């Protein structure tokens, strides 16, 4: 493997469980596992089995490649609001919100989670491929007295699935955040995830990551799962992948993320790209992100052409539905459930239909 790749704290731990490591956003990351020994009794391994294990029991994902940072200082929430359309001032301590960094034309620089730990203390989690861009962008916009402190020495684990709640044994509500102890290890935990299942994202000092992962695996319901299953799970859940479904050329309106714009922010539009985004909200966006169900069993992958309508941005096979699913952008007139589309897959026209998302119902702890 490429020597210039960065390693995550649990690199050796994953390999011990039979991980297949691949380059992703500059890191060697587990994409799937060929389980051995005890873990093989719990799960066959591979994207399909890891995916189904997450839906049925619980899966442990290592997402330590993602960017974590603290934004600290009086007025931190107000400072961040200058960069995002979300209501950060109104976020209560102990709560987390999904929001977007937008650019001047209404495009999306990144999507991120913002947790309010205290009035002047925000915890941010951003995409691995965007963390350098994001951190520079945020730091450049901060007034004196507010600092962005990246946390490269912390790991991030996600325990996802219906069995997660009894393992973490926390009363956190969905999108709640707290510092709690899990198996005696102090962690910063949010009840959230990227699979559509109930679950937790757990930030922990890199030095404690292995002990935490080992203790979580002591529960027979848990197996490690790789980025392959994470991708198919989030696609079933209808969640965007930065770089595929959203980027600097797609707006929150086009992406179906209008709900991330705070109510107060819709009266002031005082965030980057606010006027462009307002115009799309008032007059309609030229294209919209929709769920797409191809006929038959052939998956339509990312970049597949939707004839005279747009492009697939994420596509694959749904293990839960045992059928291909996709999402993509289509002309506004076609963005209606039941609309007939034609996909060009390997030079052949493949019929498909616009369908509502998520493809698999969310099971968050509400």
């Amino acid at each position: 493997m490429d020597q210039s790749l960065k390693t995550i704290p649990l690199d050796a731990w994953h390999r011990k469980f039979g991980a297949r490591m691949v380059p992703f956003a500059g890191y060697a990351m587990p994409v799937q596992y060929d389980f051995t020994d005890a873990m093989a009794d719990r799960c066959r391994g591979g994207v399909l089995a890891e995916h189904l294990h997450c839906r049925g029991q619980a899966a442990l994902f290592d997402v330590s490649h993602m960017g974590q940072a603290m934004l600290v200082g009086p007025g931190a929430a107000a400072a961040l609001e200058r960069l995002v359309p979300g209501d950060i001032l109104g976020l209560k301590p102990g709560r987390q919100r999904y929001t977007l960094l937008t650019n001047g034309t209404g495009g999306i620089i990144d999507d991120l989670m913002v947790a309010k730990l205290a009035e002047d203390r925000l915890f941010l989690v951003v995409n691995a491929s965007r963390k350098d861009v994001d951190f520079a962008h945020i730091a450049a916009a901060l007034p004196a007295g507010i600092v962005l402190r990246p946390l490269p020495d912390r790991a991030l684990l996600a325990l996802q699935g219906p069995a997660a709640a009894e393992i973490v044994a926390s009363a956190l509500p969905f999108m709640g955040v707290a510092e709690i102890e899990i198996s005696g290890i102090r962690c910063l935990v949010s009840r959230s995830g990227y699979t559509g299942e109930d679950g937790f994202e757990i930030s922990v000092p890199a030095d404690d990551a292995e002990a935490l992962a080992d203790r979580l695996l002591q529960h027979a319901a848990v197996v490690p799962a790789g980025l392959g299953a994470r991708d198919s799970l989030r696609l079933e859940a209808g969640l965007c992948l930065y770089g595929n479904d959203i980027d600097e050329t797609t707006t929150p309106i086009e992406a179906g993320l209008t709900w991330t714009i705070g109510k107060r922010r819709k009266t002031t539009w005082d965030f980057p790209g606010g006027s462009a985004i307002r115009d799309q909200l008032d007059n309609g966006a030229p294209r919209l992100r929709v769920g797409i169900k191809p006929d038959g069993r052939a998956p339509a992958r990312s970049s597949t052409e939707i004839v005279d309508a747009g492009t697939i941005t994420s596509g694959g096979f749904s293990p839960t539905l045992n059928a291909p699913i996709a999402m993509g952008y289509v002309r506004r007139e076609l963005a209606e459930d039941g609309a007939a589309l034609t996909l060009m897959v390997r030079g052949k026209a493949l019929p498909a239909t616009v369908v509502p998302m998520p493809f698999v119902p969310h099971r968050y702890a509400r």
Partner: protein
Amino acid sequence: MAKKKSDIRYTKDHEWVALDGDIATVGITDHAQEQLGDVVHVELPDMDRTVSANEACAVVESVKAASDIYAPLAGIVVEINETIVEDPAIVNSDAEGEGWFFRLELDDVAAFEELMDEEAYEEYLETL
């Protein structure tokens, strides 16, 4: 397969070929199915299609990606394995047996001998 491994040849695209008279059975190797991961969809060539050597004529889709399957030798498609279309997981569980893709009536049976034997294929895998 009833055949001994020595009757089987391999390609650099990770197909195996078993010869019986002038009929060649073609599938993907165990190494290939391992690399692909869970196979979820297979597209086979039409019957009676004439294919040249190294022509893409089938597709295997795993959860991760789509891959072309090439005709290892020139010939005519005389049989296709519909079973793997109905149950693609067979390609993972028995790639070099029940998971075969198609059978070709070869134009030139002698060309079979020019493909890699098991030992050469194993050596080739070492270089990857």
